[in-house]
């Protein structure tokens, strides 16, 4: 990594001596405990010291008399958590949006679900909850029996506000042919040019974080995996990996390789899906059909190795639940080889095809500095020259032992975002090939203790759409005390909201799909 010399922890320590308390090795590289107001100073010091400081997530906790806030930040070579607390009867804290604009959504989420008031980032109405949800009741607080809350009657349908001048508001969603998932975007246009995009999230909000508090750790694997039907293996790994960190168990080498194979198969099918879907959005249906035809053999491989096409619950605390038979390996390899042979054809379409270039080049351009400020992750960040890939930065499982390239483009447009995925398809095939060739022998699972001790941990992994973040707090009982998930689309959405403005309304679909949006993840 470029700035691997910056030692952010000692810089924070030297600049803010006596004011903050640093716990090394907790919740990432270090946890910085602050009292009210000082969290902003820590953020400022970090921003000054490292230009790559970006927000990952804000976790809200109910600590009894107080509400806890954890600001998870990533720098070029470290992962830092800043702790702050606010009293429950006056839950006010200063916003950090003026320092890091990418924190806006995270703050709104904590405000909606836990009732923290962020001074300087006023929330207007509910962010994830229904419009009918009563004011002043926050589902993530422990004393709230959220499933017994009585909703307000639906508001009368608002009269349409007359359009002023040339500005016209176009409502996309919640049911719309271009969206597979229900979500609403109010796009204001002046003629053909987009002037404003207002998202309304929460149509797929199922309250999974709260629900996981009333289920056991084992049941939760099945629950969190159902956050997303596309990157389900990543969610299962995120949960299991975090629990393993609290337990301080290490999984056997064979399990590490098998997990990598599963995660990469997940990435392969997800990227093929998106590359095809992008074709559909620009009216190139042949491309969509081709990609999805070639995705089916990968689905068969997923079924072969895990037992099911979509949900297989392969990941478990202590390893994986199924081994790959030696007799299956040749079949996996030939299938991947067939896909590899087709890649030059697809690559040439994505790089040279005139209609793709016309619809995607210079559409939705996001600069590198904006990508960092807004906290982009995954292919969206890498297409803007912001080289973050958790597999490289903080290798987990067997990724540290497997050679592969980190794909970075600098154009920052829709075209680059799709080409990052195109190249990653080949890298994924290489990774799986390598992992199968070097599969260690031995057990693929160990018996992990059932009882999780008191503790907390964070885990990051590179899902197909980018960095996926998990935080789990255990209170020593059979159920976790808090499970926080920050999904890649949640982080990437601000990119679309920013870059769509000033462009033609016809560019909205390709720009939007280049994020590879997944709202079941975003809303949870």
């Amino acid at each position, binding site marked *: 990594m470029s700035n691997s010399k910056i030692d952010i922890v000692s810089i924070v320590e030297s600049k803010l001596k006596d004011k903050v308390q640093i716990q090394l090795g907790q919740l990432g590289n270090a946890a910085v405990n602050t009292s009210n107001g000082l969290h902003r100073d820590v953020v400022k010091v970090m921003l000054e010291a490292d230009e790559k400081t970006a927000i990952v997530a804000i976790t809200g906790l109910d600590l009894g008399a107080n509400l806890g806030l954890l600001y998870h930040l990533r720098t070029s070579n470290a992962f830092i958590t800043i702790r702050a607390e606010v009293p429950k009867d006056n839950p006010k804290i200063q916003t950090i949006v003026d320092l890091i604009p990418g924190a806006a959504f995270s703050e709104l989420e904590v405000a909606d679900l836990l009732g923290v008031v962020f001074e300087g980032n006023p929330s207007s109405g509910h962010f994830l909850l229904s419009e009918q949800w009563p004011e002043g009741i926050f589902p993530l607080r422990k004393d709230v029996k959220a499933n017994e809350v009585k909703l307000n009657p639906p508001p009368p349908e608002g009269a349409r506000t007359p359009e002023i001048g040339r500005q016209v508001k176009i409502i996309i969603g919640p*049911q719309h042919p271009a969206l*597979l998932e*229900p979500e609403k975007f109010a796009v204001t246009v002046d003629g053909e040019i987009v002037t404003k995009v207002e998202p309304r999230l929460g*149509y797929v*909000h*199922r309250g*999974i974080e709260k629900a996981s508090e009333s289920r056991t750790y084992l049941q939760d694997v099945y629950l969190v995996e159902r956050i997303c039907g*596309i990157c389900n293996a990543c969610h299962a790994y995120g949960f299991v990996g975090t629990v393993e960190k609290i337990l301080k168990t290490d999984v056997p080498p064979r399990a590490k390789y098998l997990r990598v194979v599963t995660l990469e198969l997940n990435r392969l099918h997800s990227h093929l899906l998106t590359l095809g879907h992008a074709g559909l959005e620009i009216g190139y249906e042949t491309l969509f059909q081709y990609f999805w*035809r070639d995705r089916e053999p990968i689905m068969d491989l997923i079924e072969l190795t895990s037992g099911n096409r979509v949900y297989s619950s392969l990941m478990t605390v202590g390893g994986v639940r199924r081994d790959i038979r030696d007799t299956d390996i040749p079949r996996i390899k030939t299938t991947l080889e067939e896909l590899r042979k087709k890649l030059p054809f697809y690559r040439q379409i994505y790089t040279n095809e005139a209609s793709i270039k016309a619809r995607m080049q210079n559409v939705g351009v996001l600069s590198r500095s904006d990508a960092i400020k807004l906290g982009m992750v995954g292919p969206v960040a890498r297409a803007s020259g912001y080289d973050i890939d958790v597999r490289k930065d903080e290798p987990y499982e067997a990724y540290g032992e497997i050679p592969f390239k980190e794909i970075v483009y600098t154009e920052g447009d829709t075209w680059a975002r799709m080409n990052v995925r195109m190249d990653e398809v080949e890298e994924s095939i290489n990774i799986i090939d390598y992992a199968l060739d070097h599969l260690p022998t031995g057990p693929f699972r160990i018996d992990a203790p059932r009882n999780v001790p008191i503790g907390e941990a964070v885990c990051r992994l590179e899902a197909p759409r980018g960095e996926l973040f998990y935080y789990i707090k255990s209170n020593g009982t059979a159920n976790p005390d808090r499970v926080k998930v920050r999904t890649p689309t949640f982080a990437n959405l601000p990119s679309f909201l920013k870059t769509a403005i000033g462009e033609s309304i016809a560019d909205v679909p390709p720009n939007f799909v280049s994020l590879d949006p997944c709202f*079941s993840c975003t809303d949870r």
Partner: protein
Amino acid sequence: MTNTTTWARVKSPWVLHFNSGACNGCDIEIVALLTPKYDVERFGVKLEPSPRHADVLLVTGCVTQQCAERLKRIYDQMPQPKFVVAIGACACSGGVFDGNYNVVGGVDKVIPVTAYIPGCPPRPEAILDGVVKLLNALNPPKQKKQKQLEPPKETKPVVSEPEVIVPSQEAKPVIEETKTNVKQ
């Protein structure tokens, strides 16, 4: 006229897909149905973006508080006769998410459901099977009777080949029985 419309509906049902709070698992399997391996279009099924032109509503996912109202509105916008297929464990009953604070439950809590396809997610083959069974169920009994009546007339003069025809005559009611069973 009704026969023609029924024939058209059975031969080419236009379906609308609505995700009322799904995890994407079921949705992706529905999209996979349209692609070369499963190719649901060979049954004349066409995905239709507007509720006003749709015959069948495919709903995936548990119904969230925010979607309940919208789902009802979409259902009301569809012309009669309309059919609703609940795809996946969540749409059938709420699935793993049943009892969560923002979740109303299965689709039948909000709108009437014609057919349930369980599974998490159901395999594309299962969805295909469900759709075909629904199409068979759409065949009104009148048409079936006419079909049954016709073959005997033709077969009467052909006395020499009863063995060939009798099994086929018997076979038909058997198929129809399974069809009606399936409907329930």
